[in-house]
């Protein structure tokens, strides 16, 4: 299951900060646990999150092993023009989860 969920305001005002909430499904295996066979379960976490507006990075985060499964991230940003908001989560195996949303800016 690879699901991503993003909530942003229907419209935002030009130059005014607004909040974006994101949620993604991922086990976020820490690499510290042992499986039933006694062997360490290899680390498998999302290590990078990037948000881009029309190709330009507006927010990014490096994630660490102590972050829970299905990580929730929220952040504030500003926009001067509307367009395509792209979200990308990249894990240790290089697998990507992606989400795209349309941002409307007025004023």
């Amino acid at each position, binding site marked *: *299951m690879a699901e991503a969920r993003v909530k942003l305001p229907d419209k935002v005002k030009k130059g005014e900060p607004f909040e974006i909430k994101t949620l993604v499904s991922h086990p976020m295996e820490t690499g510290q646990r042992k499986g039933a066979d006694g062997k360490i379960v290899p680390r498998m976490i999302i290590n990078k999150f990037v948000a881009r507006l029309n190709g330009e990075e507006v927010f990014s985060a490096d994630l660490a092993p102590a972050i829970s499964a299905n990580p929730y991230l929220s952040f504030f940003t500003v926009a001067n023009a509307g367009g395509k908001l792209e979200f990308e989560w990249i894990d240790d195996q290089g697998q990507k989860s992606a989400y795209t949303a349309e941002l409307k800016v007025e004023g």
Partner: protein
Amino acid sequence: MRRPSHIAFALTLAVAGGAAFAQAQSEKDAKYRVGDKYTGYTYADPTTQSMQDDDYVNPGFLWVQEGEKLWSAAEGAAGKSCADCHGKAQESMKAVGALYPKWQEKIGKLENVEQRINQCRADNMKAEPWKWESPALLAMTAYVQLQSRGQPVDVAVEGPVKPHLQNGERLFYMRHGQLDLSCANCHEDNDGKWMRGDHLGQAMANGFPTYRLKEQTLISLQFRLIGCVRDTRAEAYPYGSDEYLDLELYLAHRGKGLPVEAPSVRR
């Protein structure tokens, strides 16, 4: 002379602020209290409550979203999806979950929502049943249950179901395992007390499937019942056993009137 009045003023402010906070809390709690029944939400930490309050913070909605996709995905030999027969889940599944577990005349058996979904897959879609606790079954259960959110739990307990309810009640008060504990020993006799880092609740089942922070995943009521029986150091019944179905029915009946809360968030 002035200082005491300042202190008094500050105290008044603090008390008023505290009271306002407590009132806001109790208003939020109110929908999870019906008479002398209340759900685990009322015990939950404010941070856990706020996760459940926002559908974009509650990780359970990742499963709901998956369930929504599965709803219209055709599967099985009949080439049908849920939507082909049931249309929009928002209409056809509205308040349905609040009536489960429910007696199925056709098979002469009690069924919970998970079993009903798989029954429908087998009969109408000619598809393989989903495994217990599989992401797909959890997702569909969460999606179906969400359509009943806020509806009072209202299971039928008369007719052919009656002996099952009585058996469920018997199991609730029956001591299990090496620790010799019944469900009631924790969830009635010690309801509200602190245990293993959380409050023992009233064992209300209206919030399932629940996103459990400990498991870091959505869990079914069956999973929780197995966990509870195991905690008494008894051998747990298997998933979907008659015993757990009867117990599910009794739990739903005990919580009659509480709103369906799925997908809830618990520690």
